[in-house]
């Protein structure tokens, strides 16, 4: 056994138990490396033996073997609904996977305030908005409102953070101007609507505007939203991105760490 190959958690030492193979990682269905997965989709044709075969053929083209269409139903006139199972014949080399991650160690409320007090020695200022046409504020409010989210206090509650929530449908330029006026350290942009990639375009527009005015390095740019991630945000030119499950203290941890990093670089 090497670090790339090991027995699964709790497995008895028996010759029938196959090891996890990180070089050739596959889904675990009912046994190691069986690659079994379920797939569900709808086809715009009536259910028929031909439709069933078409569904199976699609799955084979996706790289499944031992394909079983276990359910075919009429969803409505001209539409069929399928559930399929198959074993995938692809695998991935887990040892080669690299992911861009937000550079921070998550800290608690008191620790964050204390870090700001001792290392930055002044209150930090964070401004946020949902930009463009997007009218959703649930995520933004979860980050800013006193009460916070899942028992994790929002930014407005931090004595060492001055937080300003501009709400929804704020044009990019207004957000930037407000950030200048407030002399903000960080700008948080929330994006929920993803139709026609408008979330990505909004973020890119924001960064183009910031560049144009020479404000790119003045702020820490952060995005958040259910369909946003750190790599995607970095690709759009921002500094960090947060997806589903993010707590206010995660964002605060990052902002503090990044501010300290920037201060140290200046020294």
């Amino acid at each position: 056994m090497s670090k790339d190959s090991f027995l699964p958690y709790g497995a008895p030492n028996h010759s029938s138990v196959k090891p996890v193979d990180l070089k050739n990682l596959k889904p675990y269905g009912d046994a190691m490396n069986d690659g079994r997965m379920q797939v569900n989709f709808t086809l715009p044709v009536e259910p028929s033996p031909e439709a069933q075969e078409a569904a199976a053929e699609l799955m084979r083209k996706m790289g499944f073997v031992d394909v079983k269409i276990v359910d075919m139903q009429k969803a409505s006139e001209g539409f069929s609904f399928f559930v399929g199972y198959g074993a995938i014949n692809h695998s991935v080399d887990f040892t080669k996977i690299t992911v861009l991650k937000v550079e921070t160690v998550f800290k608690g409320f008191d620790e964050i305030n204390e870090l700001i007090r001792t290392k930055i020695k002044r209150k930090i200022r964070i401004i946020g908005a949902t930009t463009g046409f997007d009218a959703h504020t649930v995520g933004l409010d979860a980050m800013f409102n006193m009460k916070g989210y899942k028992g994790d206090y929002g930014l407005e509650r931090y004595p060492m953070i001055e937080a300003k929530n501009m709400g929804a449908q704020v044009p990019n330029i207004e957000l930037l101007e407000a950030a200048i006026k407030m002399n903000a350290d960080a700008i948080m942009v929330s994006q929920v609507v993803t139709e026609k990639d408008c979330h990505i375009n909004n973020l890119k527009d924001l960064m183009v505007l910031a560049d144009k005015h020479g404000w790119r390095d003045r702020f820490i740019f952060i995005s958040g939203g259910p369909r946003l991630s750190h790599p995607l945000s970095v690709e759009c030119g921002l500094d960090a991105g947060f997806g589903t499950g993010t707590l206010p203290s995660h964002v605060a941890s990052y902002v503090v760490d990044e501010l300290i990093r920037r201060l140290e670089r200046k020294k």
Partner: protein
Amino acid sequence: MKLRLNKTQIAQCRSIAKVVSRDVGKMISQHSTVAIERSALRVMGICGAHKKADGQFYPHANAIVDQLEKDNVLARGASFWLANAMLQLEKSAEDVAALVAEDKLRLSEIPLQKKAAVEKTARALAKAGVTKIVEQKKNRKNLLKHLDDPHDPSFKKPPMKYVIVASGNIFEDVVQARAAAQAGADVIAVIRSTAQSLLDYVPHGSTTEGFGGTYATQENFRIMRRALDEESEKLGRYIRLTNYSSGLCMPEIASLAAIERLDFLLCDSLYGILFRDINMKRTLIDQHFSRMMCALSEIFINTGEDNYLTTADAVENGHQVLASQFLNERFALDAHMKESFMGLGHAMEMNPWHPNGILLEIARAQMTRDIFPKAPLKYMPPTRHMEGDIFFGHVYDAIFNLVSVMTKQGIHLLGMPTEAIHTPLLGDRYMALKSCNYIFGGAADLGDELIFRPNGKIEKWSQKVLKESLQLLKKIERIGLYRAIEEKCFAEVSRSLTGGKGFKGVFEKHAEYFNPVQDALEVELVKR
């Protein structure tokens, strides 16, 4: 299945709502808005638009109101100026509108005709428009004579199954709406583009784009209504159509919906203020007109209290929902609406991992049913705690379906397993409807068979929520609605009386203010 709730407290809540609405009512009657003026023009037949230099269509109704506003004469009412020009120029309403849109005519510069003659001309147009709306109501009644009506005002049938379509293209929406109807949906809501609530005009023509939905336009209403009428005939069941009378064009959407025979409108007295930052006065004035339109057309309103539970904690804030429902009920009564058309809103949004959370949800849902016995309550599915696990989400929605049918909600917005991931795929909607059909069928009469344990967990929770609602309403009575909103009594959002969008479009009525459409609505509604 009934809860023992304190009847005196319920009556106190209602009488406070009346006091609160009385003050607001005075303000409403002294004001109009640009949106109400445009609605009047639309009912009077001004439905055209002209193409601007950028290729976008701008409605004639807006062109007229914009000009009158600019010339500082809007306070007499747009209808007056339109009719005055028609008389002097001997032209039709649409011809006058087109001249204004092309900037070839200034309405305020036309010599004033005899007041009685102007008013007569305007009233004739208004009457024709209102007659058309009344006819559409009759058309619906006629359809319901030979088609099955999934709605039962005594709630012996399970709730109406309501789904959304949101492809962003009205023609694609038609395909999905028909598929949903075949899979069991009773109500189709065509989601609007997320930007539309803040547009101060209604876009023109059919649309194939938008963000998170496509635009609400008169033509899109017509396209979907026609498709659903065809599908209704085919299925032998009347399929209802919904849109959104909210945002800056609240009254205009209500008018267009009435003209095109929509059946439901999201139409809340406070939603725009709290969640779209639309000015308080603007929203309160607009909702009154919008609801008069709904009352005349027998459009069910759906109120938006479900949203309170997405921004504020759902376990702790049930009382905000109930307090707001009392206010929404009162404002709707003030607009001559019948209780049986009030889809008062709420939602199952408590943290699913809260101990006995399902019991608390049953308590709130049953309490709402018992307090508003005639209202076709609009029950919204979990959204806040849906995080992408479609398998858990499907189970969570199934429990929501069960709570809804056992507590006899009126309008059931189906939860989608893919909530928080994307707007529903055709297959998502099918799965959700199949689960709902199973539970609504299998537990159709469950509510009639169960009795709550006196002083049990469910009953006590409902009593607690009612008591807290009364306390909140007492506070609102003491400080008035405007300050209550300023002080975050709802959804933890603070708004000011003169802040927010659309305040500029509010104006005080002139002593000779004239709105023949509103007058005709009053006459029809009082006659009823």
